[in-house]
């Protein structure tokens, strides 16, 4: 397994998922279960990624500058700030807290 394999296999699966949708019958949409599972999978993956990216270092849980950074980002998203603004502020806040030695 190399990074290239990951990039190319993930890309192929993404295209296959989209393309298959153009070949299968419309009636799949008559039952909301498939749609609901697909939408909830997106929510589950993103939420798990938020948790893992905020808390983990390898296989251990570490509470550090990421926590205040993510909380500030959440506040900015709640105020409907643009994506790039919230993300950049989170990055700068974490970096500053670490430079000041206030958080690991």
């Amino acid at each position, binding site marked *: 397994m190399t990074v290239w394999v990951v*990039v190319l296999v993930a890309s192929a699966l993404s295209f296959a998922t989209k393309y298959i949708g153009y070949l299968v019958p419309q009636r799949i949409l008559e039952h909301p279960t498939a749609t609901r599972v697909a939408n909830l999978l997106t929510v589950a993956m993103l939420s798990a990624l938020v948790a*893992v990216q905020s808390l983990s270092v390898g296989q251990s849980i570490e509470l550090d500058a990421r926590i205040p950074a993510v909380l500030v980002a959440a506040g900015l998203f709640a105020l409907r700030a643009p994506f*790039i603004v919230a993300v950049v502020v989170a990055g700068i806040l974490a970096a500053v807290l670490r430079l000041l030695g206030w958080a690991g």
Partner: protein
Amino acid sequence: MTFSESEKVALRAGVAVGVAVSTYGFSFGALSVASGLTIWQTCVLSLFLFSGGSQFAVVGVLASGGVAAGWTAIASSAFLGLRNGIYSIRMAPIVATASWLKPLAAQLTIDESTAVALNQAEVRSQRVGFWTTGIAVFVGWNLTTLAGALVGNVLGDVDGLGLDAVAAAAFLGLLWPRLKQLQAGVVAAASAVLATILIPFAPPGVPVLAAAAVALVIGLTNAFRRREAGVEHPQPDDRSDPGEVPGLSTEEADS
């Protein structure tokens, strides 16, 4: 070529969404290169995978687990992208007017192109909205990915200081507009708790993947669906349109 008034509205919406989403591409490019992917690998993801959430997932899982987490990176990306297949089924009768258009339409079927199309009333305007948004996002997203990757490459090691927080905030930003119903909220909370509990026990990447079980159980049983006096509320996640996307104002976004 002349456009009707409603087609012009769709055209303008597509360009506006393309511009708004392109700023995400810059964050993706910078994050990807800073996570250890090459500029080429970063650009290939934007050209061929072309689905924001899945691209961020590949980079995020590889950043924390390395190539050892390769298969979980692929699986997380694939699970995140399944909704694109639903959009494709929805868009097929509207935009795939010739069979040679199907592969092109497939590559451009994402949250944004689907949302703009379904926000139009007439079929012709839906077509204009889909193709304009798809092409605008594709061009903008790939250009800003390259720009972000080049900047991330120049910054080199110094940007490592706040990078992990950037990734966490990016996933939160992608999740935020999807938390409009109780069911989605329960899935998000349970997924975060499950992934966190698994961090010390499972190899990197697996805690994220395990959260798919939460979506499957709640999605298949339809648990936590909100009912009042026996009346079921319409659930946004039962619908095959993406709802809110950046740069597009809908009635729902204001509620």
